[in-house]
């Protein structure tokens, strides 16, 4: 009886593995999405026998999908939380982090805003509603329009931790669902301020130095830019087979060139 059960389990396990061969699914962070999509396209050109499906949804969604066994890679713009890690491990999933890029969360304002610099304290005061007008930071008299990400976003969570220290975003803030939406809205709002991953910055907006440091490859890599972070892909245990091949590709020189081409900062 024991042998029959063991054989059955092994057979089912092999069937499950066989079903997944040649197919990689990943979902999660909308910040990581353009990197994952571009890398997947280049990877599939190189390995046409492997098909990669990439979806967004947010970092939390990707990690939940990894927990539920419906994706093999969770893209995340923040480190996994203790609660998520605990729930994953209890389900037999062992989230293992692979850094794939560096990123700076850029503070952006309308392109006609002449603002030269913001301190972290000023950013916190703007986002918590203590500073309401650009004149309070030495700029022309214009009400500030605060634009933020929804609280499910990994970018929001990193921003909330590093810039706001966990403080509550002002009630009048516009909460938007993507980096693109933030940049577009700030670009069309003269008094607007927002934040987004460096890869999403366009000519519509101006990037404001934080503590007199401009987010750049050098300042993000060295950590002198206060709002820098790493972007991750999480797998169940150490990546193997095609998944390992895909992550190794992103971490390779060719993959890191894609990271740069998408406007993010390479690991090396």
């Amino acid at each position, binding site marked *: 009886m024991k042998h029959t059960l063991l054989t059955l389990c092994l057979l089912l396990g092999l069937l499950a593995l066989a079903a997944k061969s040649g197919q990689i699914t990943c979902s999660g962070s909308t910040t990581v999405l353009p990197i994952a999509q571009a890398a997947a396209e280049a990877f599939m050109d190189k390995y046409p026998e492997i098909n990669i499906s990439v979806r967004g949804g947010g970092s939390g969604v990707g990690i*939940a999908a990894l927990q539920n066994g*419906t994706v093999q890679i969770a893209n995340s713009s923040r480190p996994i939380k*203790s609660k998520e890690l*605990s729930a994953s491990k209890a389900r037999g999933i062992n989230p293992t982090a692979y850094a794939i890029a560096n990123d700076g969360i850029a503070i952006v304002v309308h392109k006609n805003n002449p603002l030269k610099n913001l301190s972290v304290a000023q950013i916190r005061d703007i986002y918590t509603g203590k500073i309401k007008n650009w004149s309070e930071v030495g700029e022309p008299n214009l009400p500030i329009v605060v634009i933020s990400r929804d609280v499910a976003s990994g970018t929001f969570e990193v921003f909330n931790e590093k810039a706001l220290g*966990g403080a*509550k975003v002002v009630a009048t803030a516009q909460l938007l669902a993507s980096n693109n939406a933030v940049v577009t809205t700030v670009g069309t709002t003269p008094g607007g301020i927002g934040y987004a991953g460096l890869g999403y910055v366009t000519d519509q907006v101006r990037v404001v130095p934080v503590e007199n440091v401009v987010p750049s490859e050098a300042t993000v890599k060295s950590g002198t830019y206060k709002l820098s972070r790493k972007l991750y892909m999480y797998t169940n245990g150490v990546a193997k087979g095609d998944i390992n091949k895909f992550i190794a590709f992103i971490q390779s020189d060719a993959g890191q060139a894609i990271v740069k081409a998408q406007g993010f900062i390479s690991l090396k």
Partner: protein
Amino acid sequence: MKTCVWLMIILAVLFSLLPVQNQGVETSLGGEFWSRWTLESGKSPVNDDTIIKKNYFALERGYFDLRTTFTENTKARFTVDIFSTDLIKDGAGLKLKYAFVDFANLVPVPDLTLSAGLQKVYFGTIYDWDYTLIGKAPSDEYKLANSADYGVSFNGYLPAGWGEYALGLYNGEGYKNFGDNLKKNIRMEYLANLRLTPIPGVTIGGSYMTSSVERENNLADDTPNPAYQQQQLLDGVARLAYGPVNVWVEYLYKDVTFPNAAANDYTATGFMVMPVFSLYPLIGTDIQLVGRYDRWDESDNPADKKLLNAVTGGINFNTLHNDSFVPALQVQLNVTQKTYDADNSAAAYANQKKDALQAMLQLKWRFSSKIK
């Protein structure tokens, strides 16, 4: 009563929307409804014939849920439980299930949350029981703990995914009782819970709770109250998860002493094993096969001697998943055989009088959406 239910719902929605207008908090509205057909057969109370004892449709449970995020560190939940009942002439009942606020990072311990209000009781599997089978968690089924109660708890997560813990202080009478119903018991219930996951897929844990029933001395004349009980409650949990297989094992222990009527003292023990097998990795459709075996031994209780064995087999079909693979629709079919051991049960259970074969078919649907 129906008017009252709808009024409550409308008020809840309105109150939830007000802060959206005024404070910009994020609020989500959710619900879950269980529509069930129950068919049960057993021995006739007047002869040995096997008869159909139950055959009906009902909305066994409905949750209406509001979750508010004031800040990243302060979140609240308000849940009402709506259900079919023939105890009320209109056929529907309403209970408060949860109404609590979570304060994260209030205490300078990472990942520790202080919860205050009508909240979960962190005992055994009752607090994260997800009804993979229709039946309740063992500690709920065998009356060791209530699924919700009024109180205060500290609950948190250990670093590096090592597990979770909780310390709680509750009324002890559960979410259905407050005020006048508690005057007979002035002692609080104390709880400690720990779950560890030393390696992925292997979880072990335990809970300890002290509880009491009634008042030690009668309020009117200060004479000893023979109904006063002190309870020590223990629960051990093990979970093994590997690929599509998930096995829960739970051990229950209840020690009841009657300080004013020692002859009534008793202990009871219970055991449950529940394997769950997901077919999703094999066939790409979210179907689960579930089994459960329960043994509840209260044969030491002079007031209600019984030894129950229950076996359940079930199948779940889950569909309309969201991005996190949480299904919006679930169809569950369960068949349960309950058998009381004649030698170790009181006369009320003899001759298979309370044995039952029960089939339940349930359609569960849930929704959740952000208001802002």
